[in-house]
């Protein structure tokens, strides 16, 4: 079930529905993503290098969290005990509202998600962000995005930037900091997503962070400038170049089998390049949604990918304009 459907089914926030009782709940939502357009190490403006990334959001999947408050129990429980990060996020969020007049000592978090885990689609951050938003919603507050980012990082160690959904940012995923706002929005593009190693999965907690060499760090400096220009000028071709370059650098750390074949396939069908989940197994072939004949190229790539034995994850149209040319094949 997609996030949009969830929203349609539950159009009310608990806040307005059940005023003033223990049964009043808080509701939060958060989208998934499809890996990154760029990930590496970047100067934070003070000369200090920080790990940071530019997330490729995927808004047709996501997590919905419901916070059921309790006035009796001084703890947070989560229905699925495997979601320890969600529990930690809710504890931190509740602590944030300790001084709020209507706060509660504890409660229960209920998570509904259609984001697959372990392939790099940000299921964890999606859950964590939704949980933080649910707790905030219970208090009748909409937290600033960057504060959600800091809480999410505190809860899970490293987060993507899906909580920041009104602009394109270079986000320090281990510090919860926006290093740079690259622009308002991504240019209209279509992304054919696939899982390059179906069934393999990556344990993001155990995955060792990449140790980039000097040359790679120099290259990230250039990729950042290219990303800045691509977003500012709406240049999908340049964006695809950045994504491909970032994916290639990452091959040294978490290689995607057949990356070069995917790049070749994409370019041959009029596409702009390939992005990957730098700590996952998915990849996406990027197309400029404004280009005539884009639907054909997308459809051909999608069927070629299936012939290659890879699993399609999504066709993402990132802009309303792009959604009109979505492929039904």
């Amino acid at each position, binding site marked *: 079930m997609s996030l949009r459907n969830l929203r349609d089914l539950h159009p009310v926030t608990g806040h307005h529905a059940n005023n003033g009782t223990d049964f009043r709940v808080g509701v939060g939502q958060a989208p998934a993503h499809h890996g990154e357009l760029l990930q590496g190490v970047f100067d934070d403006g003070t000369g200090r290098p920080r790990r940071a990334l530019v997330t490729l959001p995927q808004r047709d999947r996501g997590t919905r969290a419901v916070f059921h408050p309790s006035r009796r129990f001084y703890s947070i429980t989560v229905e699925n005990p495997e979601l320890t990060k969600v529990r930690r996020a809710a504890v931190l969020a509740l602590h944030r509202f300790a001084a709020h007049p209507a706060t509660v000592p504890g409660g229960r978090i209920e998570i509904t998600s259609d984001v697959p885990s372990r392939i790099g689609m940000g299921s964890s951050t999606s859950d964590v962000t939704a949980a933080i938003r649910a707790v905030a919603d219970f208090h009748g507050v909409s937290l600033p995005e960057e504060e959600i980012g800091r809480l999410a990082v505190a809860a899970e160690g490293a987060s993507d930037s899906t909580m920041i959904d009104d602009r394109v940012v270079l986000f320090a995923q281990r510090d919860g900091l926006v290093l740079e706002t690259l622009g308002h929005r991504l240019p209209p593009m279509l992304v054919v997503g696939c899982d390059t190693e179906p069934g393999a999965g990556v344990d993001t907690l155990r995955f060792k962070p990449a140790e980039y060499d*000097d*040359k790679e760090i*120099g*290259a990230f*400096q*250039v*990729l*950042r*400038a*290219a990303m*800045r*220009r*691509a977003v500012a*000028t709406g*240049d999908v*071709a*340049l964006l695809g*170049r*950045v994504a491909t*370059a970032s994916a290639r*650098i990452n091959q040294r750390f978490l290689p995607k089998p057949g990356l070069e074949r995917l790049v070749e396939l994409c370019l041959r069908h009029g596409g702009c390049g390939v992005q990957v989940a730098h700590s996952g197994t998915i990849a996406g072939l990027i197309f400029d949604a404004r280009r005539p004949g884009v639907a054909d190229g997308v459809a051909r790539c999608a069927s070629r990918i299936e012939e290659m034995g890879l699993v399609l994850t999504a066709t993402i149209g990132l802009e309303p304009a792009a959604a009109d040319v979505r492929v039904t094949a």
Partner: protein
Amino acid sequence: MPLRTGFVEATEAYQIPKLVRVAPNLYGIAFTLMKMIPARFILRRAEQDGKIGPDTVIVETTSGTFGLALAMQAVSMGRRLILVSDPVIDERLYRRLTDLGAVVERVPASAAAAVGGYQAARLERLAQIRGEHRSTFCPEQYSNPDNPRSYAAVAELLVECLGQIDCIVGPVGSGGSMCGTTTYLRALFPECRAVGVDAYNSVLFGQPDGPRELRGMGMSLMPANLDHRIFDEVHWCTAPAAYAATRDLHRRNALFMGPSSGAAYLAARWWARTNPDKLTVVMLPDEGYRYLDTVYDDEWLAQRGHLGEQPPDEPLQVDDPSRQDGSWTTYDWARRSYIQMMTTNVAAAMNV
């Protein structure tokens, strides 16, 4: 638009180039002092890494603009600098260096060697100086990987300002600027062409060593920082051809640059003209002030028979990089290593 602020130190300002369109599909990246980029990067990094302490003396062998950039950065950092130079160092540069507090040691004219000129004598004197001080740091622009590494900042600027770049043209000396800039551009644009411009009688791309009138490019020894595999093509030109192009660049575009910039412009404008659908960038490493009494003086040019001498419209294509035919030649280097190039040419010669 982000708020503009002032610079904390002059050297930070000096490393920023001007990117200027000189033809519909050709941009010049014009530096006041290009060597400021590696000099500042290398010294600041050495300081961060603890290789330059409060009492460390910076030492280097140079007679050129790298020494000037080091001297300026040494002022910013409050460090002592000793430069070992040829006996023939430009008098104005010498005054500027010493005014910046640098100690400039000139090796005696008698120290010239048949191959490599004064380089051996300079290195010997440098070793002596290092022995005399407790703590020294030598930037070693010809072999320090931080030299090419520093040019990521140039590639960054080019990409932000221009987007896709199809060809980069520039003079070659240490190899730092062309190899560094090209490498970082190719992270995004692997097909981006690199065109190196060298002087005749420079050993960099296979010419026999010999006296060179054209300054600011070409070498008598092979620098470790020169990665030949970067280059798609190489051009050589004579001093008068470079001078004429330098003056052209000034007259047509009001860009007041030195002769190595002129040589690069000569090759770049031809490349851009023959590839009208490609975007080309030409590196223009320093300004014309040092050449006011020479390249920019018609009388000086006339005395040498250079006045009115115009380079041909296009280079002569050669199949042997050691040849000197006319005033401007080009060779299809094809991203080979130096050894590969030599092997190819020996094989070709034996077949004949």
